[in-house]
């Protein structure tokens, strides 16, 4: 142990001396983030505090009126609730779909692993918009899903324009991200742990429940977090599959900014939305950490 640490520490000490100084290495990223992320964000915070005149974008005068409107209008809260519940359901379903995929990917023979990995990643090669259109066709009135259901049951099942369609589309898009995050954690579990559990009398299922599942939680955490944040802020899929029937926050914000041309209110809505998302994530992380006490000790 001590020698490994020594090697690691020596490596850290040597690398910067030979290569470029660390600040130079991160400089391009830092510059990019500052120009395209920090500056616009600060500008947006400022914008959310400005007065919206009857004519024109904003006046250089500070007010909290935008926040009052963003927070007090029950319509905003309905959209907010819809957005978070859609993202929550999407995350949960993605987890349910992706976990077995990740599990299989981890424990499959090496040669099959490569094929599975390619299959898993291949949808990412197709544009999100194209995949959205594909689902529109499948889920529409004359789509495969409705025609099949109609023939079998006589009832109609037109999903397009419903929250269900959005969830289906989002789950489809996010399964690879979730599966890869979980597979990463599963691959870190030494097979001896499962064998040890089995030799101590655990059935395969008990070994999974008591050993594999808890040890995969860091991957589940990373995957669910990634998918939730992506789902909450998704825009293209809700527009295409919600068919303008289902309004979510990103759409509402874009409408406020562009259609209503109310930049201060749009900025305030963004800030509120951001704050709530961060809050949800923080609560989630805290709850999850309580389920992984060994990571804190």
């Amino acid at each position, binding site marked *: 142990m001590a020698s490994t640490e020594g090697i690691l520490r020596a490596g850290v000490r040597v690398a910067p001396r030979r290569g470029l100084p660390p600040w130079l290495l991160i400089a391009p990223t830092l510059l990019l983030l500052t120009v395209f992320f920090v500056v616009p964000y600060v500008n947006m915070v400022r914008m959310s505090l400005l007065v919206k005149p009857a004519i024109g974008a904003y006046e250089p005068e500070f007010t909290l009126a935008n926040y009052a409107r963003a927070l007090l209008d029950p319509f905003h809260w309905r959209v907010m609730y819809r957005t978070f519940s859609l993202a929550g359901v999407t995350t949960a379903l993605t987890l349910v779909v992706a976990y077995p995929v990740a599990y299989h990917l981890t424990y499959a023979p090496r040669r099959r692993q490569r094929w599975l990995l390619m299959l898993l990643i291949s949808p990412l090669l197709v544009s999100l918009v194209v995949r959205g259109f594909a689902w529109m066709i499948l889920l529409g009135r004359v789509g495969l899903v409705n025609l099949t259901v109609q023939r079998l049951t006589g009832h109609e099942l037109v999903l397009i324009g419903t929250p269900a369609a959005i969830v289906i589309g989002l789950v489809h898009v996010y399964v690879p991200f979730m599966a890869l995050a979980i597979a990463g954690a599963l691959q870190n579990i030494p097979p001896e*742990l499962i*064998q040890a559990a089995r*030799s101590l*009398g*655990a059935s395969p299922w008990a070994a999974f429940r008591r050993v594999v599942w808890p040890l995969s939680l860091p991957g589940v955490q990373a995957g669910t977090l990634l998918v939730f944040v992506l789902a909450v802020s998704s825009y293209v899929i809700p527009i295409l599959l919600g068919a303008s029937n289902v309004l979510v926050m990103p759409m509402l914000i874009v409408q406020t900014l562009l259609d209503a041309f109310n930049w201060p209110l749009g900025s305030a809505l963004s800030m509120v939305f951001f704050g709530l998302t961060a809050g949800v994530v923080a609560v989630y992380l805290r709850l999850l950490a309580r389920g992984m006490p060994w990571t804190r*000790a």
Partner: protein
Amino acid sequence: MSSITLRGLTKRFGAVAAVQNLNLEIQEGELVTLLGPSGCGKTTTLRLIAGLEVPDAGEVLFSGRPVTALPPERRNVGIVFQSYALFPHMTVWQNVAFGLEMRRESARLIRDRVGAILDRVQLRGLGDRYPHQLSGGQQQRVALARALVMNPAVLLLDEPLANLDARLREDMRFYIRQLQREVGITTVYVTHDQAEAMVLADRIAIMRDGRLQQIGPPEEIYRRPSSAWVAEFVGLSNFIPGRVAGRENGLLVVRTAAGTFTCAGQAEAGADVLICVRPEALRFDDTYPNRLRGTVRERVYLGNLVDYRVEAPGGLQLRVQADPSWAVAPGGTVNLSFDPSAAWAVDAREG
């Protein structure tokens, strides 16, 4: 507690036979070490006993009862892995209690048994620690406790000391030996370290290329190796090539380039043999009837003894380990002799 019988056990991985037609009988309460170089099939044998691998042929029996078809959770074996395989997300206490919980024992019994076994391995008070908060030796003892708390029929140890530093390894050898004697459990211990095998074993089973080479008590393995390969694997040995001339007083008479010697062993007259003589069996005097002269080429001081390379007639290079009070300088001519009963002839073709 059980005896273990392995009957014609064979396991292949693709084209490679990891274990070939292995027959082995381990008595109740006995500690047998499987000793061999890496890749000799000793770990596979252990995993076959544990049920972690399924044999291609042959049978595993515990106390005469076949268990070959049983999954590991139904064999009642305790395993200690080289990596310890402690559950990192469980405390020491939870690790040790895991097996009893799987057996659905009562909370009261679990509390008593876990407490008692932690006392026994001197880990009382560390129950709330996580494995990563323990030293290597402590982790090792948790792994032992986790296996022993189940009162398993057999205890299987796979190179359990390989990840410890030299000093601790030495202590743990005796500790495991003592613990095994106290508990009286049938134990199979896999190692590639012959010193470890010597200290621990009631009997040592030597394996090579998936086959059993020899099984016997440590002294027998050392003094009466079945082949030159075994002699070399277990300690140092000199080999004097020769041909058997006949038998005399129960000893073999062997003609060699360095002279005619008598030694123990089984071989027909006319057979080509190698006489194994351990370096410490060669003495710088004429005490014994087997005598030869040689020239000292090299002398290395090792503290408790001195290591000589001696050139003998017929181009023989002999290694001699002697007491440091003997001081022979390189270049000097010396008389050597060895006890016929300390020399052992093995077949020259095997090996």
